[in-house]
């Protein structure tokens, strides 16, 4: 038990020594190694087909949707929870924006169009904020376990989206949305720019601010955080509102990419975001994890998926490979931990 407590403590200080800061964490090392192995493997299999502008660009266009959704999943995971409602929230937010776009935003001229475009985006974020508030309140104030609360809101939010649209598609958006989904600036896809513009602030928020520290500590020991005088419930509400807001960003990205919105887009991503986060070193029990690890894991997953595509293998095999990679990484970690004490020169290092 005492050992358990010790391993669950947050890192003593994020900036202990300059050297420690420069050295990548074991999680990142493991992911870099895996990425290198996969790159060599796929380079041997595919050669120039993988390392050309087209393949890299197609990867860059696909990664951000799952990327932003995984960020939305990561924050609740860090706090020791989970948010199953991210996809439903993303779709309902996108539908809200799509409704405003298609009903008001396309007619009239100049300033009023611009105002309606802003209103459309605001509508998306308001809807997401409400869902996040509901999740956070039910989890923090009523004490419902995050899986169950968000399972309920997931079903209800998707139900609202299906009920309002009858399962239909809303399409036809202004040119700037199409540009965000499919355009590039200086060769860099807009979706990647959006992803970076979201991922960096989230990374900074989680590792360099008091809020981020509290979220990670919540995941380690909620009781202790409360006894240290922090209103954990307000923090939890913020966690789920932030998750919902990121879901709205993902919803808008999906809408821009497909140039349409629907109640059921991206549903297969839900459990994949958890896979991506855990592969990226985020402890599903909470407390530990960094955006950098998540981004690396997303690159790995996307590399596998694109390579499978180039090899003319069904996309479903890459689904299987994603699951197998997560299990494999955990397995290698266990074998390594078991072998380490037996290696010459390292004996007893961990004792």
């Amino acid at each position, binding site marked *: 038990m005492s050992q358990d407590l010790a391993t669950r403590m947050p890192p003593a200080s994020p900036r202990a020594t300059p050297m420690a800061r420069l050295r990548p964490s074991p999680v990142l090392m493991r992911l870099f190694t895996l990425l290198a192995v996969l790159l060599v493997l796929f380079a041997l299999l595919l050669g120039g087909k993988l390392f050309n502008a087209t393949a890299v660009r197609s990867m860059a266009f696909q990664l951000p949707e799952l990327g932003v959704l995984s960020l939305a999943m990561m924050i609740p995971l860090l706090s020791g929870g989970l948010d199953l409602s991210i996809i439903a929230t993303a779709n309902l937010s996108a539908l809200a924006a799509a409704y405003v776009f298609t009903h008001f935003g396309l007619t009239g001229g100049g300033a009023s169009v611009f105002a309606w475009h802003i209103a459309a985006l605001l509508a998306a974020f308001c809807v997401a904020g409400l869902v996040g508030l509901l999740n956070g309140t039910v989890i923090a104030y009523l004490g419902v376990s995050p899986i169950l609360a968000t399972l309920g809101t997931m*079903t209800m939010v998707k139900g609202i989206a299906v*009920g309002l649209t009858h399962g239909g598609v809303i399409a036809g958006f202004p040119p700037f949305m199409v540009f965000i989904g499919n355009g590039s600036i200086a060769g860099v896809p807009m979706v990647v720019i959006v992803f970076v513009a979201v991922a960096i602030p989230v990374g900074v928020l989680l590792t360099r601010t008091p809020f981020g520290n509290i979220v990670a500590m919540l995941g380690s020991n909620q009781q202790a955080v409360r006894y240290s005088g922090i209103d954990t419930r307000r923090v939890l509400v913020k966690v789920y509102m932030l998750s919902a807001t990121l879901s709205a960003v993902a919803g808008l990205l999906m809408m821009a990419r497909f140039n349409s919105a629907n109640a059921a887009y991206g549903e297969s991503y839900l459990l994949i975001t958890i896979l991506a986060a855990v592969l990226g070193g985020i402890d599903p029990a909470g407390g530990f994890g960094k955006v950098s690890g998540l981004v690396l894991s997303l690159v790995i997953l996307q590399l596998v998926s694109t390579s499978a595509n180039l090899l003319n293998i069904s996309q479903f*095999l890459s689904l299987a490979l994603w*699951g197998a990679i997560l299990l494999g990484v*955990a397995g290698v970690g266990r074998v390594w931990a078991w072998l380490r004490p037996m290696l010459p020169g390292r004996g007893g290092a961990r004792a």
Partner: protein
Amino acid sequence: MPKTSRTMIGASLLHSHEGKLLLVVVALAVFLSLATRSFFSLQNMVDLLTSYAFSGMLAAGLLVVLISGGIDISFTATASVAQYIAMTVANHFHVGWIEVIAISAAIGIACGLLNAVLIGTLGLSSIIVTIATLNVFFGLLMFFTHGNEIFSLPDWFVNGASWVVYTDADQTPYVFNLQMIGLIGAFVLTAILLTRTNIGRQIYALGSNVEAAKRVGIKVFRLNLLVYGYMGFVAGMASLIQAQDAQSVSPNALVGRELDVLAAVVLGGASLTGGVGTVWGTILGVMLLAFLQNGLLLLGVPSYWSQCFTGAVILIAVSALAVERQRHRAAARRVMA
């Protein structure tokens, strides 16, 4: 003052989760019977039992996993793999019911045991392992089958087995079918496992407190093999029932329904932290969702809104459960102090 047995029963009915749930389900059933003409008809009940047999069976299996303190997300993929392989064999070889049942049971158990082994050795939580295996099982199934459905099943399977138990004045036969056998069988078997065997006590002990369970000599890894193996077995059986009802096999028809089953079990009072849950509660949880969805349809609510109501009911129910548990804890603290 001595309580009479009648008030004791009344009190326990209101204080246990199952009791409250029973009242809600009965109230819903009475309301639907009065509000719609067809809800309280034999035909509707037969249809409900048949169409909810698959989810109900899976709920029974998942209950055991939840009580043990774990969770399984992969069972829909397990069921898909089991029914696809079993039906492919049935189409190409001269086999009968026994072989088909044996094949799908074996595949289900194998997938379950794999889950248990991975959970026991990898140091990952059960939810993560089973999300991963869900993707592995489902991905491989779709890869090898190219997503092709099986439309023609052997005649003996399509015809199934049913026993006419009652024919009404209009000569409409009411049958007792395989789906009902499967559903009843799964619940009876789970009830026996949980309440009439030593293993059942061990499963509750494991879910209540892993450390204490280890100290009293419970072999956690072996028990997990049994728990996840049982879930796989039930998934294999449920997959046959589902294929027989649907009269075809589609590799991607079942995956995605795992969270609905989880919702039913949790509505029934099982806790995600383990150690809590009963077969009665699970039956009531499944009934609540089935009555609700069926009732909305019969009331003429557009089917598009059915999911929204289901979500709202789940949210209200889990909130009520949580508030109740908080109150219990607060009361316990007062007693301690």
